[in-house]
């Protein structure tokens, strides 16, 4: 059953409510009117629910804020469309998503950003926040009109998966961003060290004869980015780290007072290079799945707060692009609908209270953006997800709304599924 009413008042009754900001949980009713939460535990005077969600046995939490999901528009509509991926996000409990600028054309001028936001607004689903390109065409030569792009709605500036090779350009881009308090987002990788590499430099790559991506490629680029961040005072967000050494470097950088935050892709919490198996292209991802010590360090860094956020790194890929020899297959994992169960799995395996773990996909990423989402308070935006934390489901093509079915979890059973997703007081998904 899908709900089509727009902005009716909603009562969510009897759910176990998570407050990630305070790390607490309690069975409470929640009342929503217009776009905001108007009551928690206490029904406001005169409140009449147009729509009631019986949440007994279910969990209610601030909606997921995803720092990296590719909607494939504009330019790559054959892989996925905005509508399908927005629906996938809603079904995954995602209420805000940030999309990187590596579309075609690149998001480096305000017209494109406006168009994308209009397209997203016309389609029911999460709030879409574009990241603008840090350099024109992501080419790493000239900086973009960051103020104009910010006015158009960009929330940060990123190079997506491309690098700024010229350190002076990087230095100036960060200086400029720092002037106005913009956040710079970098995925750190020295492309000279990566070259045609497709798998973690370890025993598996050695055995399978796959060109390797050394951890050094990430570490060197990260050290450079941290140095420039320190020199410029910019707010730096390091996207999708993959190595144990990166976790250690970031822990030290934070202790040292550098204004840096970071995230990890959700699949990196569960997969290693072993999962490549016999050249399974579904495990072809950038950065590559690394060794078990790296996986352990990422999980621990997330527990102790060195890593601020988990992102989906959602990248729907056409089946034809995956039915190729491993090295030739397009990298990427479809993940919007797996954020919730895979985060729960990590929390459960670490015996972490769910309200605390949930911060990594709500208040944590909101803090990275300098925005107030993820809060559970009267007056806060009504971005919520109601989910069944105990529902097992099988990840298969029929169960996914994304056009991409490219996930190494295909065929596996996972636990935790959204039942209702609410964005700005509007139900965007219900089953």
């Amino acid at each position, binding site marked *: 059953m899908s709900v089509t009413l727009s902005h009716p008042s909603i009562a969510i009754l009897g759910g176990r409510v998570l407050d990630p900001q305070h790390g607490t949980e309690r069975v409470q009713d929640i009342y929503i009117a217009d776009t905001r939460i108007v009551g928690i535990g206490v029904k406001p005077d005169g409140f009449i629910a147009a729509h009631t969600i019986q949440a007994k046995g279910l969990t209610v939490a601030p909606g997921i804020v995803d720092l990296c999901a590719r909607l494939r528009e504009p330019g790559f509509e054959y892989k996925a469309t905005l509508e399908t991926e927005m629906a996938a996000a809603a079904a995954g409990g995602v209420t805000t998503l940030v999309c990187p600028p590596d579309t075609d054309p690149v998001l480096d001028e305000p017209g494109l950003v406006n168009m994308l936001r209009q397209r997203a607004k016309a389609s029911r689903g999460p709030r879409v926040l574009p990241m603008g390109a840090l350099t024109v065409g992501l080419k790493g030569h000239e900086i973009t009109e960051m103020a104009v792009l910010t006015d158009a709605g960009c929330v940060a500036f990123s190079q997506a998966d491309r690098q700024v090779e010229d350190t002076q350009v990087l230095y100036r881009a960060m200086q400029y961003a720092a002037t106005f308090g913009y956040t710079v987002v970098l995925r750190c990788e020295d492309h000279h060290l990566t070259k045609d590499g497709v798998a973690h*430099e*370890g*025993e598996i*790559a*050695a*055995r*399978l*004869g*796959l*060109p*390797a991506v*050394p951890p050094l490629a990430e570490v060197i680029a990260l050290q450079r980015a941290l140095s420039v961040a320190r020199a410029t005072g910019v707010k730096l967000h390091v996207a999708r780290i993959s190595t144990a050494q990166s976790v250690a470097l970031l822990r030290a950088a934070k202790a040292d007072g550098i204004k840096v935050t970071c995230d990890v892709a959700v699949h990196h919490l569960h997969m290693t290079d072993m999962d490549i*198996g*016999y*050249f399974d292209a579904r495990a072809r991802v950038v950065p590559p799945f690394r060794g078990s010590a790296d996986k352990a360090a990422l999980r621990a860094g997330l527990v102790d707060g060195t890593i601020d956020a988990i992102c989906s790194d959602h990248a729907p890929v056409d089946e*034809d692009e995956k*039915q*190729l*020899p*491993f*090295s*030739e297959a397009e990298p990427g994992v479809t993940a919007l609908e797996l954020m919730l169960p895979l985060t729960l799995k990590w929390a459960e395996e670490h015996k972490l209270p769910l309200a605390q773990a949930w911060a990594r996909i709500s208040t944590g990423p909101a803090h990275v953006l300098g925005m107030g989402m993820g809060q559970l308070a009267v007056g806060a935006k009504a971005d919520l997800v109601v989910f069944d934390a105990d529902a097992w489901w099988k990840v298969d093509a029929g169960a996914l709304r994304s056009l991409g079915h490219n996930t190494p979890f295909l065929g596996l059973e996972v636990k935790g599924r959204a039942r209702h997703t609410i964005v700005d007081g509007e139900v965007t998904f219900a089953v």
Partner: protein
Amino acid sequence: MNHPQLNAKGELTHLLSIEGLPKAILTRILDTADSFVSVGEREVKKVPLLRGKSVFNLFFENSTRTRTTFEIAAKRLSADVINLNINASSASKGESLLDTVANLEAMQADMFVVRHASSGAPYLIAQHVAPHVHVVNAGDGRHAHPTQGLLDMYTIRHFKKDFTQLRVAIVGDILHSRVARSDIHALTTLGVPEVRVVGPRTLLPAHIEDMGVKVCYTMEEGLRDVDVVIMLRLQNERMKGALLPSAQEFYKNYGLTPEKLARAKPDAIVMHPGPMNRGVEIESSVADGKQAVILPQVTFGIAVRMAVMAILASADAGGAA
């Protein structure tokens, strides 16, 4: 996960890699090859084991030599052989690998012999062919060249008899070598107690020691008291990209000369998968010397490839396990 090479009865249905194959299967291939060596010495060099079967040589990467030995092997088994050089046809027209294979399968192929520049490509093909169709990996990227590994084992067994008493050194560009990887798996599976890899760090993959080999950086250390020296081909393109300064300097450090070979046991054999670069990885006097068994390798290679194809054709068509 299904075994990629064995069927439910544990029979070999594809030959994709030496890794993961039990010793009994390797030994059976070598024993079967024994019986085929004599076929090549007869006046009528044919047996009817693959009569009526179609073997497609699918070479996505050029190799006249390997393709020819597979062609001879298939013909001696009385198969019909179709050679396809895909570089020059479908791939350049944008047809995908699996489409090419599906089209050829529709022409009633019974066996594909595949060479491809990407590691793992034959696995993808093996996963998508009908259960009665067999796939032989004739070299994929840096990953594996299992028939070369098997013919190397055949050669070693022929000259040295017992694997369990040997020291074997593999020298040169291990990083890019599918032959090295197949040899390492075959040698360790067959019980060779000490396998060494010898080369500069730029040509050794990180974590190669996890494959059960000893890493040596000098020929002095690497060749000491070995029974078998396997030299690898050094591609000219390795001089680009800062892997090596020059062919001359490589030869100085790792080229096999009589002086360096003197470190090995007096009866050590010298092998090379071909084609050789004389004066780059091996000196002519060694390549043509009495310790070299490089030409017998080629002869045995045909018998070993016949054995592989005959064994695959005899597997139950029930499909992979």
